[in-house]
């Protein structure tokens, strides 16, 4: 009798603990660990002729280094709101920096397909832009993302989206953004310096194919966007600085295949994006003086990538990506344009990337990537070995 009683209480105790264990996932805390080893063939400084680089744009560090480590906390605030905060922890020139990558709330209960997001978030421009780096199929962003957005377009503001009540998936939306972060700058128009419009449409073809097509447009009144400066010997550092109007239009598509819609054994993904940017304004080489060198600037930069990833057996995937960019920039002073990195030097940047990765479970991934990088005149061979691991609750991924 005593034994039975104590057994029963042990069981009920175990049940209570389990209930607590489940609840302890709220809020969800997830941690991404990312470490890399990279080898470059070319020691010269990275550039992308015709594009003013900003943000974290570049080929990354050589040797053993940490990648994009991330801590994210999210939960339903209440029945109306969901909230998420993501911090990226990275080393920049020997110092550990914590960057606030996302900090937003999102409505859940507006209904009629409407939702509003506010705070800091990845803009809905393009397809890859909203995915976290650890969910990418390659170690790095496509060149066009590097050239236009400094890897990824993040901003502070408000996003509104509406899903149509139709058989086919149709989402339209817009964003009003502060426009302080690259590639905007200056938070012009009283801190409403940039805006976005986007539309996505998608569906299935049979049971094995799924697709999505997106269109997006971003514009900003740019006030003093700076890009990587450089100093001539014995002279003050000159920082290329752009002010004017900037517009980016993009089209993106993704197509996924899995036999009978069952992706666990084999699956295939093909995705591509094309962006074109038009800029109008002035570029000055800011050296702190009252009358820096200046030029008018009428720029057009465009590019696309196409990538395919194939899981040929559980755990193993291979991928191929091709990048292509082109810039056509004009200005009153070609020399100043060239100094600002806006001369394409008669070169169209290209890159071919191969990758293979192995995922022991859904939470751990090891990746080997080789890139033949023709970003600039001198070709580079880049070899990267990467691990990406996620700790915490099972995340749900976007299509």
């Amino acid at each position, binding site marked *: 009798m005593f034994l039975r009683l104590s057994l029963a209480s042990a069981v009920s105790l*175990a*049940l209570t*603990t*389990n209930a607590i*264990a*489940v609840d302890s*996932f709220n809020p969800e805390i997830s941690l991404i660990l990312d470490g890399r080893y990279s080898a470059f063939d070319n020691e010269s400084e990275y550039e992308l002729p015709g594009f003013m680089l900003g943000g974290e744009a570049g080929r990354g560090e050589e040797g053993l280094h940490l990648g994009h480590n991330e801590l994210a906390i999210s939960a339903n605030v209440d*029945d109306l709101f*969901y909230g998420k905060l993501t911090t990226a922890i990275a080393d920049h020139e020997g110092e550990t920096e914590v960057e606030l990558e996302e900090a937003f709330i*999102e409505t*859940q*209960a*507006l*209904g*009629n*397909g*409407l*939702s509003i997001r506010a705070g800091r978030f990845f803009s809905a421009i393009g397809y890859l832009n909203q995915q976290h780096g650890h969910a990418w199929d390659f170690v790095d962003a496509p060149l066009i993302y590097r050239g236009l957005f400094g890897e990824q377009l993040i901003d502070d503001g408000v996003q509104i*989206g*509406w*899903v*149509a*009540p*139709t*058989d*086919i*998936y*149709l*989402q339209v939306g817009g964003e009003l953004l502060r426009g302080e972060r690259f590639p905007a700058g200056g938070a012009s128009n009283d801190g409403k310096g940039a805006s976005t419009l986007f539309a*996505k*449409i*998608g*569906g*299935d073809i049979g*049971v094995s194919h*799924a*697709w*999505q097509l997106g269109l997006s447009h971003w514009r900003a009144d740019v006030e003093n966007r700076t890009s990587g400066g450089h100093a001539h010997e014995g002279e003050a550092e000159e920082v290329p600085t752009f002010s004017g109007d900037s517009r980016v239009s993009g089209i993106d598509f993704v197509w*996924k295949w*899995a036999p*009978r*819609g*069952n*992706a*666990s*054994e084999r699956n295939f993904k093909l995705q591509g994006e094309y962006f074109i940017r038009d800029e109008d304004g002035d570029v000055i080489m800011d050296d702190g003086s009252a009358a820096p060198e200046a030029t008018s600037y009428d720029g057009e930069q465009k590019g696309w990538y196409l990538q395919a990833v194939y899981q040929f057996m*559980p*755990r193993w995937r291979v991928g191929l990506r091709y990048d292509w960019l082109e810039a056509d920039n004009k200005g009153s002073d070609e020399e100043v344009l060239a100094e600002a990195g806006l001369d394409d030097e008669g070169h169209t940047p290209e890159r071919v990337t191969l990758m293979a990765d192995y995922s*022991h*479970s*859904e*939470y751990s991934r090891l990746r080997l990537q080789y890139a033949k990088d023709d970003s600039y005149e001198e070709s580079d061979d880049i070899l990267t070995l990467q691990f990406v691991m996620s*700790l915490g*609750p*099972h*995340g*749900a*991924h*976007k*299509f």
Partner: protein
Amino acid sequence: MRLNYRIILLVLAMGLTKSSLAALNVFACEPEWASLAETLGGDRVKVVSATTAYQDPHRIEARPSLIAKVRRADLLVCSGAELEIGWLPMLQRQAGNPKVLRGQPGYFEAADQIERLGIPDSLDRSMGDIHASGNPHVHLDPRRLSTIATALSDRLANLDPTNADYYRKRHDEFSQTWEEALQRWKTRALPLVGARLVVHHQDWEYFFDWLGIIRVGSLEPKPGLPVSSGHIVKLKKRLQQEPPLAIIYTAYQSPRAAKRLSQITGIPAVELPYTVGGAEGVVDLFTLFDETLKRLLEVIP
């Protein structure tokens, strides 16, 4: 005045006819729930299934077509217990349809209605992709399914009160035939009581609990992890002492591992439908159990 009165009546009548014929849009996460919702809802529900028997319900893409379906759903019927954790929350967040969020009447979790098996003592990913709230593959115990059916019928009546009587009537009919079938299956399954089986994934726990079948091994080294050849060899050694009745796998799992183990041990490998649509002739929950028992009884020497 008289005219107005007539118009009001007419409008009311139209309203009534319309609402009594209006179908509830049901989004079922898995085919078993689509089938149950159709059985219980009849022509008052319009059911779509997010997945087929050939898809692994743990691993579904949050596809645009599914977002569009959740957007228009009045009721989601899912297994729950984290089976759909990799995709359903994303659909719910993107669809902008508050009716079907967790905690709302439009969200029905089957696993929530019954006593679950396999609730882990501790949560540690080194034990594989375990479900914190227990094993979610709840539909394979017909006794539990009966409880779930009652709860689902109540939910339909709750969401669509004008048709409450209709749903109750259909449930009574279902319940009666189900109880009869249950008795029939129990008698038929007697030779399987105490049988030992090797599974691919731990998706048969509730079925085993019903019939007193013993799971003696899994082809997955840890729940949710892909099969490895090293593990198959280990399994072979372990099974040599006392060979089990069969190695079972489902329509959504690759037959390779089961066939390989069968080849090196001589233990028969049996494909089971697992859910509605998982084999020819398995068109509803009744034929699902009929076919499952038939295939298992066939391998008894």
